[in-house]
């Protein structure tokens, strides 16, 4: 499986997507965008189009499952949900993140 540890930004996006899906269940791409906007209080602004390569990559890696369904206003939309290995990945990412921020905090405290 692909390593993203030295690609923080991508790792962060992955984590945000996984986190959103882990808490909210099944969502389409647009709903994921709205959710990320919401939890990051619009601090993390990203080009919405760049979400899709990430969604597809994570699907291929088996972290997400994708399926077509009907949207709120009855249009065909692609829905994503998190898989067990996605949850595992999320836990790993969260731990990495925690270690990283802890390390940064420690460094900041002693400098």
């Amino acid at each position: 499986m692909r390593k993203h540890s030295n690609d923080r930004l991508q790792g962060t996006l992955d984590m945000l997507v996984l986190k959103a899906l882990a808490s909210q269940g099944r969502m389409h791409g647009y709903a994921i965008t709205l959710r990320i906007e919401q939890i990051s209080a619009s601090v993390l602004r990203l080009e919405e189009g760049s979400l899709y390569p990430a969604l597809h990559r994570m699907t291929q890696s088996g972290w997400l499952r994708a399926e077509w369904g009907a949207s709120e206003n009855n249009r065909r939309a692609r829905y994503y949900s998190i898989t067990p290995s996605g949850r595992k990945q999320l836990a790993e990412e969260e731990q990495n993140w925690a270690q990283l921020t802890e390390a940064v905090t420690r460094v900041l405290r002693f400098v």
Partner: protein
Amino acid sequence: MSWWNRVWNLLRREDLGRELDEELQFHIDARVRDNLKAGMTEETAQRDARRRFGNRTLAKEKTQEMNIIVAIQTVGQDLRYALRSLRKSPGFTALAVLAMALGIGANTAVFTVVNGVLLRPLPLVQPERLFLISYHPRLGPGVIAGRPGLSNHDYLEFQRRTRAFERVTAFVQDQVTMTGAGDAVRLPAARVTSSFFPALGVSPAMGRTFAAPEEERGSPRVVVLSEGLWRSRFAADPNILGNSITVDGIKRRVIGVMPAGFAFPGEAQLWLPLAVGPDASRNSFFPSAFGRLWPSVTQRQAQAELEALAPQLPWQHLMAAAGAPARTGWVVEVLPLQDLFVGQIRKSLLIFMGAVAFVLLIASANVANLLLMKGSLRRQEMAVRTALGAARSRLIRQLLTESAMLSLGGAVAGLLLAILGVRALLALAPAGIIPRIAEINLDARVIGFALGLGAVTGILFGLLPAVQATGRELRTFLGQAGHAVTGRGEGLRCVLVVSEIALTLVLLTGAGLLLKSFLRLRAVDPGFRAENVLTMTVDLPDSLYNTTVSIQAFHARTLEKLSNLPGVLAAGAVNFLPFNGVMWGFFHLYDGRPTPSGYMVDKPAVSSEYFRVMGIPLLSGRAFSDQDNSTAPRVAIISQSVARTFWPGGDALGQRITLEDHPKSGNEDWLTIVGVVDNVRQRSLTEKVHPAIYQPYAQVKKPLFLSSMTFAIRTAAQPASMATAMRGVLREVDRNQPAQSITTMTDLVAKTTAEPQFQTRLIAIFSMLALLLAAIGVYGVLACAVAERTREIGIRMALGAEKSDITRMILRSSLLLVTVGVALGVVGALAVTRVLARFLFEVKPTDLPTFLVVAALLVAVALLAGLLPARRATRVDPMVALRWD
């Protein structure tokens, strides 16, 4: 998603692109809708949505790229993983690849032959329009039985009247002796009419082919050479045309050389002109005939035409007029030209295909078993990986990749084995059994076949173990901290081994039946002693030898010179040599008793020494002598079968009979029986003994029965070494008469047993292969069971079990496996061996002794295979076993 799914996705990129477009469009539309709800104008809402989304094309491209990259990565990962895993257990890998290589190799070898013989079209121009024309009595005289063909009269008539065929032609396959260009050499040849090459659509590379007048007797003698012969014997001499070569003692002018690769029919190396006329000698009496259909005509239409013309064809009427009994059942057939060569061998090849398919199934079961065993050893690994979140589908995919690589390796190794296998197969085949040998070689279809087999078997034997190894009970397995458990895996392995044994039994039974049949065939007494007998057949042309006197004079001179040759113990002659032809008909008894309807006898005309030469025992009375000449009272010798039928009291000697259909009342047509000889098989070893009435050839009056005569000599030394001397005698008597054929009697007999011998050998080899694989299978399952039950065995021994108890326990499981397998196999064999019925001689497909012997053999082999694991089990040290884990 499995990786082949991904690969598939790559192939249908267009669809995926459309789906992706839809997904992205949905996002933009949803944003626009929210913007409108928030109170933006249509235009601002659109612009805001596009700005937020960014470069849509880029997003799409990046997404698609992502799919491809991940796909490639996963495939690579699976392959790497599989390779690493296979490298970790080289013994297992080697065994599995070897089993697959044997299975696939055997199949590919047989397929290579099938491909060359049956599947590949003949190397001719539009061979699909070439058809054999065949019209003969269903149970014809031995000379023509079993071969598509047509009498000379019917050929000429049909050629005149057909509308379906663009061209009709006739040929006779032959063997000739070429002298004068290096050592004398015997070559496959063909005598063909002038329309032969035009009908095939081939032109010579040099010179020309035959012109119509060259068919006629007495025309300048010519010959057409194959490119191979021209190259090997005449050093590709560019000035060969117009030179003379000697064929069967006759000088012939070379008029043409055919293009490279042309060797039709059979492996013909040279072609001689053939005259088909109403007065033809035996040579062209019943040629093979074929024609090229007009492009718009179908085989069915041609068949209909032949059927419509058949009642008007003259031969049947001529035969009836000549007093021959009207026979019911004439065969009217238009057949693909290929059938001339493959008719006999097709069924055999299909049976070989079936047999090797069994071998492959057994090999697959073996590899599946190996994978199951490996799977059970890897359960710990699988359990851990599952616990860590690996999806089951991913694990299955990985295991399947592994088995796919195994079978692919097996396919490549099998292909190499097949190349050797084909050579071995052709070496095993008696000469002349397999037609079109030159076309049996590796081509794209064969390679595709091998790889296809690899792919199919890879999935076939990989899926079950993969599903098994990643089964749901893995979590419980982990809970047992790696204790050996026996679970469904063992049951499944037993099922596989039982099927292996059952399949092997079917194959072995087939081999057993064929072997028994072949031994029976070999044990048949032909009624003569074939050893040390050399025969030479001479057909005298009726243009030069048209009276009985001239023919008999020729025979007498030849016989005298032959018997004076040094090394010749006796020389005789017969007009229809056993295994080489027959003439049969009715006869009447003098005392007015009717002969049973349909009772026919062979009517050989023989010289006085014939019975001595052939070693046919005289049972009573006397043999013919030189006093039984044309002026002496007419005599006959009957076979024992005739004597038993009509004179069961043993009083045949002195009785009178006639062979004429309408005997005159005087003594002229009546023969006195002077002797009784043993029965002789006239046609083949498989036929029933046929009654025969022999006459001295000097008392036979019709030239028709004398013009073809076979001389036979009993030699002191190797009979084949006398061939040159025999030919020399013929040249001394009449230098213009070539021998039709010179063959030892043993070769003639062997020819009739060649095919069953080949079948028996091949099926025996395949079933031995199956037996070996099954033995490995039984061994594997028991060895694995012993390994898994080490703890249990240890406990048993600690509790006082004897070594013999343990041995018995293991052997009992082995016996159970083999019993169930044999039971199933017997049922299968009963269903399958029926296809062998037409190949079996005096053995029923349900022959009980064969079944018993085969079952006993399998049980013995299975017990033997179980012995090794059983001995290992008795060596388990209870202390070590109990301390495991």
